[in-house]
């Protein structure tokens, strides 16, 4: 700009008038030289780079007088402008004002309009997004480097995660299988132990005892025979029979695990119906024995019986599972 060298900071706030012309003087003075000397040839060369600034119209006369005379008192302190000042000063002092020249005003208007336009466009384009298309080669290379570094970092991360996944997946599978197995085993044991309700093919065995002749030993015999014939679980009058089940009492006042049972004694048994029925009826077995003593036994095989009486789970007080590992 015509405002002279960049180091034009005013040294002293009080000396405005003295300082400013020094800063601006050289630029203005040089410009004035060109104008006063030969206005027409100079202007086209200056305007050439920007055709849209109406270079063709520029040759219209611009006031040839240097700027300095307009503010003569200030310019007088500037050594460079002073020599040029005297010739044009008297004639053009009044005409050298902004806005007097419509062409200059139009040019200024166009230029500032362009500036505003470019400013807005640039701000908008920067705000829009990071436009890689306009970036320089080295910037692009740097961005690419960053991206590839990031990519390799992410790839490492992926492979780490994959390894962790591989490590975890089988153990998870194993543990879930083990869990399944343990669960199934627990159910089986629960059925045997009487802590889980069970259903399946079996039979219902009814012992009628009108004369109170059935003893504890008969009940125990029946249980043993049924077990021997493949009974998996059973209940007697709503009392589940488990491993540690005890039959107590005297004829007519029996109890299973302390729970009284009354005639007719109803055995609900899960197991092979045919096998158990045969076992009950063998000579010298449970049924003939009870019949011979005045009781009676009826056996009803069934495809599906439900043993739903439960025993409280026995928590071993002293024994603990042996842990090998």
């Amino acid at each position, binding site marked *: 700009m015509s*405002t002279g060298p960049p180091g034009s900071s005013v040294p002293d706030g009080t000396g405005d008038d003295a300082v400013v012309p020094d800063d601006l003087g050289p630029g203005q003075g040089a410009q004035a030289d060109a104008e006063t000397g030969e206005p027409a040839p100079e202007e086209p060369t200056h305007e050439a780079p920007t055709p849209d600034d109406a270079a063709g119209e520029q040759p219209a006369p611009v006031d040839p007088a240097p700027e300095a005379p307009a503010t003569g008192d200030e310019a007088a302190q500037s050594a460079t402008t002073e020599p040029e000042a005297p010739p044009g000063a008297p004639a053009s002092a009044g005409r050298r004002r902004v806005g007097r020249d419509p062409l200059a005003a139009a040019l200024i208007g166009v230029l500032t309009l362009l500036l505003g336009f470019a400013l807005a466009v640039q701000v908008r384009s920067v705000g829009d997004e990071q436009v890689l298309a306009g970036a320089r080669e080295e910037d692009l290379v740097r961005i690419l480097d960053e991206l590839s570094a990031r990519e390799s970092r992410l790839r490492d991360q992926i492979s780490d995660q994959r390894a962790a996944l591989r490590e975890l997946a089988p153990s998870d599978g194993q543990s879930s299988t083990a869990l399944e197995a343990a669960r199934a085993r627990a159910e089986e044991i629960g059925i045997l132990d009487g802590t889980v309700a069970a259903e399946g093919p079996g039979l219902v065995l009814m012992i009628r005892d009108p004369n109170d002749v059935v003893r504890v030993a008969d009940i125990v015999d029946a249980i043993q025979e049924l077990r021997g014939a493949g009974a998996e679980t059973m209940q007697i009058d709503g009392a589940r029979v488990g491993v540690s089940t005890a039959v107590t009492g005297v004829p007519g006042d029996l109890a299973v695990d302390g729970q009284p049972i009354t005639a007719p004694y109803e055995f609900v048994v899960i197991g092979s119906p045919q096998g158990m029925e045969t076992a009950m009826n063998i000579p010298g077995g449970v049924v003939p024995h009870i019949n011979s003593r005045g009781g009676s036994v009826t056996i009803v095989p069934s495809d599906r019986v439900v043993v739903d009486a439960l025993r409280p789970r026995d928590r071993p007080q002293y024994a603990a599972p042996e842990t090998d590992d």
Partner: protein
Amino acid sequence: MIPILGLAAGVLLGLLFDPTVPLWLQPYLPIAVVAALDAVFGGFRARLDGIFDAKVFVISFVSNVVVAALIVFLGDQLGVGAQLSTAVVVVLGIRIFGNAAAIRRHVFRA
């Protein structure tokens, strides 16, 4: 008055049309804008000093823009475009600061 009107109208137009900057112009536009801003500040300062010359302003505006773009272009050709545009921006920034200081002295007398 005209410059302010022109600036405002230009900003409005730019926001209104929102054109895409051509690819070849993208490295130079910001530099050109800064250079033009420097010219505008200088012109404003000259106006306050009472020595404003429309022709000087126009020529300095244009030459500022052209030279700045040229330097950046040259830098791009030499492979130091980023550094040179930084240099241009720094220099122009210093000049703008200087002009702004002079304007401040005029306006606030301080």
